[in-house]
């Protein structure tokens, strides 16, 4: 798949910026989202994801730039909820209102047929709770009701902000399947998360932000390929190999008596170095470095910055195709614990 471009994109964000007082929440963000795919909008907490989605939905006014859906600002869409469904937070209900009344209010305001109410309640598994007051709902049930509201208008575009918050593992698995199903119908799905691991099985494309700026965007497969560029080298000459790799500028470490890991290296880059130094090889192979460390290295440097952007971020990489970011040559060692769920082609 080619990376999303302005042609065919349903959601377009161009030069989008938002300043809250002294805090620059979003800075010159550019990305686009194409239909028929699930796009993960990823970044650590405070990266500006929620602010960006709210600008896209007309709830927050951008300081600069544009965020459009089908080429229009949200407020310019006729009957927006028929085109765009949004799941923002599981708190925007009056606790005294019954689930059905909440959805009835939505159908009244948008002119959507009332028959859709029972359909969407069934879709999200809340049919039995239709007459219950939302105040008694668990967080997961509220999240499902929020999703039901988003689906009322049978929208072509679905925008979800951290939708798995409050869902139990079954709920998350269900949501994942559901989003895949909707994308397969040709809809445009943009879903934010601060956890890549949670999204890795769901998304086709990623837009990664940190400190209010774009870090990378493109198909997840491209990111995965780059994430898996660590090499495992088995050799009887571990000390000499480590010296050679260090001299050649490859970060490396010993992982077993006869094994060295070279992170961020490729066979094409290593081969000539090993040959030139006449290293005896037992094995040279890809090792599945997880996506998560790739993600952390992309977003890490400013992840903890107070105010989400007062610390100058590393060299910005707007509109750049996925590739190792600055500093990627020396990522933290991959975790030795359980491998996060994610495509790990060997």
């Amino acid at each position, binding site marked *: 798949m080619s990376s999303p471009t302005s042609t065919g994109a349903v959601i377009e964000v161009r030069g989008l910026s938002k300043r809250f007082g002294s805090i620059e929440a979003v800075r010159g963000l550019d990305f686009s989202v194409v239909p028929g795919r699930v796009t993960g909008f990823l970044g650590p907490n405070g990266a500006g994801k*929620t*602010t960006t989605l*709210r600008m896209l*939905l*007309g*709830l*927050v*006014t951008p300081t600069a730039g544009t965020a459009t859906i089908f080429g229009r600002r*949200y*407020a310019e*869409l006729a009957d*927006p*909820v028929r085109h765009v469904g*949004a799941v*923002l*937070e599981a*708190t*925007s*209900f*009056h*606790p*005294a*209102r*019954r689930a059905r*009344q*909440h959805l*009835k*209010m*939505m159908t*009244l*305001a*948008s*002119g959507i047929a009332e028959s859709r109410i029972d359909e969407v309640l069934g879709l999200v598994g809340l049919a039995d709770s239709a007459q219950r007051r939302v105040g008694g709902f668990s967080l997961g049930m509220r999240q499902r009701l929020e999703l039901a*509201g988003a689906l009322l208008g049978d929208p072509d575009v679905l925008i979800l902000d951290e939708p798995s918050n409050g869902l139990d593992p079954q709920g998350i698995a269900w949501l994942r399947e559901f989003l895949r199903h909707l994308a397969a119908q040709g809809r445009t799905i943009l879903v934010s998360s601060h956890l890549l691991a949670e999204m890795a099985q769901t998304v086709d494309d990623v837009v990664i932000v940190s400190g209010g700026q774009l870090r990378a965007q493109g198909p997840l497969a491209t990111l995965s390929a780059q994430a898996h560029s660590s090499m495992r080298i088995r050799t009887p000459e571990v000390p000499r190999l480590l010296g050679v790799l260090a001299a050649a500028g490859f970060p490396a470490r010993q992982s077993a008596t006869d094994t060295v890991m070279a992170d961020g290296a490729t066979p094409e880059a290593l081969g000539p170095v090993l040959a030139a130094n006449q290293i005896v090889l037992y094995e040279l192979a890809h090792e599945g470095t997880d996506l998560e460390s790739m993600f952390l290295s992309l977003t890490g440097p400013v992840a903890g910055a107070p105010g989400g952007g007062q610390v100058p971020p590393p060299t910005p990489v707007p509109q750049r195709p996925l590739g190792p970011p600055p500093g990627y040559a020396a990522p933290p060692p991959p975790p030795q614990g359980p491998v996060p769920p994610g495509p790990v082609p060997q």
Partner: protein
Amino acid sequence: MIRVIRAELLKLRTTPGPWVVVGVTVLLTALGIITAFLVSFGNHVHFVAPVAEHRLRRLVGSGYTGEGVWMAAIIGVLCITGEYRHKVITTSLLLTPRRPELLVAKAVASVVWGIALGVVSLLFVGALGIPLLVSQGGSVSALFGQAGAVIPGLLGAFALLALFGLGFGTLIKNQVAGVLAILGIAFLIEPIITGLLPQVGRWLPSDAASAVAGGIARGNQTSYLLSWWLGVLVLAAWGIVPTVLGYFTTFRRDVT
């Protein structure tokens, strides 16, 4: 626009606040009905059927004279502040992103509820006031004779005070503060100003409402009030100006 108004009406009737307001309106109307029967002679207060025209008008307008009319303003406050209290504003703006449209729908819904409260007060006059009148030997036909003169002004005051409440709610945003502000203006600030400077006080919401309602609560001391049509304009301005100000200061803001 009709759709958005219908959604706003549904929002009001699916939360408990407005129904509490209906209950309080009925209680205050009962108070108005009872005071319409009270006449003091010297040190004694007597419970007698009203006969004089202005006392019959008081009975018809018990929803106004018992101060139940201020409940219309409370409805206006609830209509807008309920959005912020439970973040329903997020859903509302996703449904109706053009914010002036949403605010106008809220104004219409508030006015509809205000008029409905006025109607409730009239129905309660029928349910409690007429039996009392009959039991005290009063004339129901004499009461009906005054109804036509009272009802338009009464409903007008209910409608416009609802708009006044919406305006203050839009400015203040906070539900409790909005309700207290309305009650403070009606029962504390304005009586003091009117007591000291009636020529200033008559331009304030309560006396403007009194002018709209034909001075039914003021007995024969109505000469300082504005004419009814000026009262309508002034009271409408007390609703529209804060609503427009509130639109620019709070309602247009980012919803985060």
